[in-house]
């Protein structure tokens, strides 16, 4: 494979990544959201691996494999397990309906392109990905703030983390390996702890809607 081909392949994957992020926002079912997240993480791993292969950076390939294992297999499985245990079948409830959140998402993409244009970053790897990474970050925030279920908030957080990872990989070929490994560890532990708390919320509040949490004020 020549470098030119891989380069355009990476760009194509970036496009698919954006579509996967839209998928998370557009899907009405929690299970579908998680599948889209897995796809998102899979594409992220592919991009990371290809960037590493193209520029001969072995630790990026290692990170890609780790992403593949952790974010496309382990974390979605944990999510599915929680859903089964909690018996959630209902649709994703949202403060703003799906068509409107899609419009917001499109605006966020425009915003991230506009903002990163202003930043005048001279990228080392591929500059085109910086707005994509910022858009993913903003999508994560959108999911966190607009959804009612505690579980979808965790999903939004993980989406934000994917955006940051993409940013680090494409802007600077990834942070030092030690730091990236630590971040992976934190994400994994964080997901587990949030999962445990979701169970406790379920036990105490008879549901995992976060808009029931109104005891503490003032």
């Amino acid at each position, binding site marked *: 494979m020549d470098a030119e081909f891989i380069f355009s392949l990476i760009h194509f994957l970036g496009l698919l990544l954006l579509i996967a992020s839209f998928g998370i926002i557009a899907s009405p079912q929690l299970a579908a959201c998680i599948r889209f997240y897995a796809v998102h993480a899979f594409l992220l791993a592919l991009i990371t691996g290809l960037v590493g292969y193209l520029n001969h950076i072995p630790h990026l390939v290692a990170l890609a494999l780790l992403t593949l294992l952790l974010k496309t297999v382990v974390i979605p499985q944990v999510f599915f397990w929680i859903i089964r245990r909690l018996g959630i079948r209902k649709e994703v409830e949202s403060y703003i309906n799906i068509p409107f959140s899609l419009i917001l998402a499109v605006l966020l993409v425009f915003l991230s392109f506009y903002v990163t244009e202003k930043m005048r970053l001279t990228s080392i790897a591929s500059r085109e990905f910086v707005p994509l990474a910022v858009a993913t970050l903003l999508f994560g925030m959108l999911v966190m703030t607009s959804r009612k279920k505690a579980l979808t908030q965790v999903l939004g957080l993980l989406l934000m983390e994917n955006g940051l990872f993409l940013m680090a990989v494409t802007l600077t070929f990834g942070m030092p390996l030690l730091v990236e490994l630590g*971040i992976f560890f934190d994400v994994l532990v964080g997901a587990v*702890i949030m999962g445990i708390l979701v169970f406790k919320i379920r036990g105490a509040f008879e549901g995992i809607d976060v808009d029931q949490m109104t005891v503490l004020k003032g």
Partner: protein
Amino acid sequence: MSIPWLLSVPLCTSLLCLIPWKRQVTRFVFIAGSLALAAMAFILVFRYGRGASLFAFGGNLMMDALSGIFVILIASVGLLASIYAGDYLFRQAGPNTSPRRLRRYAFFFHVFIFTMLLTVCSNNLGVMWIAIEGTTLASAFLVNVDDKKSSIEAAWKYLILCTVGIALALFGIILVYYSAVSRLAGGEGEILLNWTFLLAKAQSLDPQIMKLAFIFILVGYGTKAGLAPFHSWLPDAHSQAPGPVSALLSGVLLSCATFGIVRFHILTQAATGTSFSSVLLIVFGLLSVAVAVPFILEQSDYKRLLAYSSVEHMGLAAIGFGFGGIMGNYGALLHIVNHAFTKSLLFFSAGHLLYHFQTKHIKGIQGIFRKNAFLGIVFFSGILAISGMPPFSMFVSEFSILAAGFLDKNFLVCFMLLFFLTLIFAGFLRHASQMTFGAGPQAPSPKRSVLMDSVLGVGMILILMMGFYIPAPLNQLIQRASQVIGGVSS
């Protein structure tokens, strides 16, 4: 004796706490661990860390004078809190608290201390980020100890808000790294995130990117430090956590996050050569003090009252760092030290209050003095101290910060600050005098614990002593640290 040894103490203690021993043995290990940590921290900082900075793990860990102060704070407040918790949770916990839950509590307590120590000892900015995220994860379970509805809510909000904030800080760190990679070609990837390395090469970093990065760092770590308007998790978590945990959260955790901001503040100052970061610190600091005022004046829950006071004091420290100069930095650091001791004393006495009166409402408490004269004296002096009255220690540091402001000719900021502080003082005095004096219901007092009372006694002596006399080694440490911030010894 070096940094890895220091870090291994809380880590080993936490693992030992997991072993299913008898209750009393776990309790002994729990307290002995913090005792050992405190002893090591004092020896390391005052004996070995006197001259140059200490490094470990290929420069990823570092302890200079600035970290030294925070190591001392974490170790000493950790010791007080663990002694207090040793009685508060292990002895007074009802029969429904299972030994398993106590062990889990002891485990997370020491992991929490470990992550805070790692935060202040890390030279690698990425490692610092990992450690700060670690503090959130470790303390989420400490906030929710009793699985009540309100505690779960507090823990959830704490976890989600702080993780989002920290994610934004990571964005800032990626920007800093990018700036280092693009401008400092040739450096080995591993050391490009090291604070000492970045500071030495600060001139060649891209000022625009560094400014942008500082904004993200300030928002991210500011969430954790409780700066307004990102403080909304703070009163919930502080009011729901058990007394000793609130003391740790408020006294040292917030300070550790501020430490992270200060490290970046130094970098940004060196890279841009402007007062960009100082102005931002002053603005957000002033906002934090202002936001705390109405909530302190009209508060019905005494633990939330103390929590909002933490927002105020972190704001004051940020303003001190913003004013800068030797005076401002010294005052801000001293303020962080004094706040750690005074606020933890107050949260310990709040634990006493909850135990004696079984309510968190200010209105539900009357006549502490009648019921328990010792507690009344400690609580009331603590309140006077936290609102900056002489002869207590907070007065000295608040005075230094204000003096730095006047020296800096920031008259408007200083006058606003004085106005807010007066209002806060009035609010505190109103609540505290209503709670302390007067005749309360004369229910029989529950059994008192000597250990818990002695923790209050020690705290009381500390805040009184620091008002008159700061021990010479500590004073030198703070002075050297303020030089680090001022860039004199860089």
